[in-house]
């Protein structure tokens, strides 16, 4: 019973999936649908991975939605206006540019939070508005398309089945490794893995977007469980003063975490632009809130100090499942927002209730 209550979010996810499967007469479980669902939630998942670190630290980053747009604009500019769209090296250049823009803003965020001691909410709120403005300025407020063909595989390619198998297996082994022998923790994640793995094999193979998600999550997971940096993140979120007296370099850790968040937002901007085959300075609206919602649904406390990357994964998956299910059921989009809000609040309320008992 204790085990079940500890894994409430996983049970919630399976219940939701079950309800939607029944309501859609199994359409939800079709391999093609599941594969697309994960593809669509990849960008949110990538952002949520970074946001997990930020929130574990006790911080928040509101600027990432605008940052996705800004780095996307630079992909559009370089691909179309600067003529980088015709070659593979141009594609690599655009990718590096997007990542660089993200990293730069992230470094700025982290530096301001760490050195000025101003609440991250305020700093990143300001940065959210600034980067949105910059995206508008650089793009003259208009969308830019189409992207060169060299970039296209990022969005819609699938890995061959053998390669997919190797990668999926690799991720799974990495996941088990990160559990540190607590195999009972593996039951629910394994079930999700199995379901998704089946979908990928039955439909085209592993989407490249999902590979990005997997790599990001594996990286963050290793960071958290295996490095001093990860421990420091938990320690600072748990008690900043205790971390200070124990010798944790608080400013450096804070800086690194926000910089990494920015880098991920840059990569997300690249992926989104390629997927939409065009950049749009208005893209990425409310992406920061989706990422925060995924993290919080996944059981990470907004006060910092507790939470896992697997939690954020299932949080992101829950949001995607809900969106997907409501689309399949033709729920009007205005109503979808209301349901999504209700799910976010009730998931966190349930989680809190269980912890108090």
């Amino acid at each position: 019973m204790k085990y079940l209550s500890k894994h409430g979010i996983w049970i919630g996810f399976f219940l939701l999936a079950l309800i939607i499967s029944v309501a859609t007469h199994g359409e939800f479980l079709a391999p093609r649908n599941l594969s697309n669902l994960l593809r669509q939630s990849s960008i949110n998942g990538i952002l949520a991975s970074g946001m997990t670190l930020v929130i574990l630290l006790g911080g928040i980053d509101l600027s990432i939605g605008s940052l996705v747009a800004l780095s996307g604009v630079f992909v559009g500019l370089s691909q179309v206006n600067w003529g980088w769209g015709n070659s593979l090296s141009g594609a690599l250049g655009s990718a590096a540019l997007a990542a660089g823009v993200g990293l730069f803003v992230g470094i700025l965020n982290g530096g301001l939070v760490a050195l000025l001691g101003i609440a991250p909410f305020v700093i990143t709120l300001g940065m959210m508005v600034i980067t949105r403005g910059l995206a508008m300025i650089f793009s003259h407020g208009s969308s830019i398309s189409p992207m060169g063909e060299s970039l296209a595989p990022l969005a819609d390619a699938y890995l061959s089945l053998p390669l997919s198998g190797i990668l999926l297996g690799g991720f799974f082994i990495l996941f088990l490794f990160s559990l540190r022998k607590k195999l009972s923790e593996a039951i629910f994640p394994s079930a999700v893995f199995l379901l998704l793995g089946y979908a990928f094999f039955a439909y085209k193979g592993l989407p490249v977007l999902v590979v990005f998600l997997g790599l990001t999550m594996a990286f963050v997971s290793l960071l958290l469980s295996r490095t001093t940096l990860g421990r420091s993140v938990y320690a600072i979120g748990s008690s900043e003063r205790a971390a200070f007296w124990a010798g944790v370099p608080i400013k450096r850790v804070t800086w690194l975490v926000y910089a990494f968040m920015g880098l991920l937002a840059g990569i997300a901007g690249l992926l989104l632009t390629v997927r939409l085959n065009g950049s749009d300075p208005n893209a990425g609206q409310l992406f920061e809130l989706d990422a925060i919602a995924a993290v919080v649904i996944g059981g990470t406390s907004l006060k910092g100090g507790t939470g896992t990357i697997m939690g954020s994964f299932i949080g992101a998956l829950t949001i995607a499942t809900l969106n997907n299910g409501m689309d399949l059921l033709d729920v009007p989009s205005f109503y979808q927002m209301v349901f999504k809000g209700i799910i976010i609040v009730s998931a966190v309320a349930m989680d809190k209730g269980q912890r108090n008992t």
Partner: protein
Amino acid sequence: MDLLQLQNIQKSFSGVQALKNVSLRLQEGEILALVGENGAGKSTLMKIVSGSYTHGSFSGEILLGNESQAFTNPLDAEAAGIAIIHQELSPFQHLSVAENLFVGHWPNQAGLVKWKKLEQEAAHWLGLVGLTVPLDAKMAELSVGSQQLVEIAKALARNTKILILDEPTSALTAQETETLFSLLRKLRSEGKGLIYISHKMEEIYQLADRIHVLRDGESIIETSAAELPEQALLEKMVGRPLHRLFPEVPVRHFGKEVLRVDHLTGKHRTGRGKFGPVSFSLRKGEILGFAGLLGAGRTEILQSLFGDREFHTTGNIFLHGVQSSLPSPMSALQEKLTLIPEDRKRDSILPTRNLLENISLSRLSSGGLFRRQRSQEENRLAKNSLENFGTKYCSATQLITELSGGNQQKVIFGRALQTNPDIILLDEPTRGIDVGAKYEIYEILFRLASEGKSFLLVSSDLLELMALSDRMLVMAQGKVTGSFERKDFKQTDIMRLALASGKTQ
């Protein structure tokens, strides 16, 4: 006539008796000094009188006049005419002076605050305490002394008959103290009863009509100030034999000097508080104690040595004879210093993490951010240290908050020792820990000292400090006022220097 009578008050916290049979009388128009060492039970007693510890959580009677009282919250005590001015004032810093007087009691009509009436009344009460500041000044703009007067005016505005003051002068200038004293005398002449808690002998004899001495939660004596001269008072405060509360002091040969501090001074970034100059040296295997009252600057010295930059310091620090600058806790750890902070809850434990992570924190952070952890080694080290100190725990992956205070402290000792320090800065190592666990902590301390670790030890428990230290420095108001070898430790002497005004060295 008796304003207030306390009869046979007893109070215990989870099995530990904090107050045993305390009886006290306060008359109309008198100032009663309440004195005792830190931990003697003064604050506990005053929390009972002011309703913070509610009726039923203690035994005994509170009588006002001849009526027995049963306070269920602090508001009841306030309504009955009892007000307390705490040592640490907690006014509403960003509200105006006038508003501070009436927070929770705004004069109003149908829920709308009557600002005019509020200001008229505020002017009246502030006049009574002799404070001339603009009514709309923000509380934060006032000096601590003026804030205190506002607090007293606030108490008077609520028709207070009994006013309790807890170390009111600890942050006041001489001038402000004088102003406060004449106000208190005026209140006395108007028939109010005042309970004055202080460590400062001068003040007690200037003000008090009678003195009540508490020791170990017991009333020792209550008598007129004239009948209890200073020497006798000090003996009443501390006078008790050493019980078998402490383990045998291990015989050690102190080695070479490991730490020398030369004319260290510190000034807080914001200008609140300073210490020094202090100079001392520490030998291998030695325990150097720091005696003094709260706020004497002992914690600040330890924290500054450990690389805290809240205080701007000057002076020289020599580690093993080499001059060192310690710009951060991390650098201090690398120089084989470690600190166990005074407030375990606030400054030591990671409440949301398990024992393993709590123990490993310092060792890991002294080794660089990107180093991979070896979980087997980590587990082994953690288990070793948990067992080494006899920690009672179920599993290394349980939350640290599931342990008792004493066992949490052992985990923190484990954390400190994993960095293999030469010098351990210990600040109030046994605060909030029960007697049995204290004994174990003492044993650990002696064992480590025998192994050649050196300690700077700060404790507010003078007996503890005397039992553990090889030498002792006494501090008052940021300055060293005396030093003793173990053979010369005498409570009254130490106490007198701790109460000194910090002018001598």
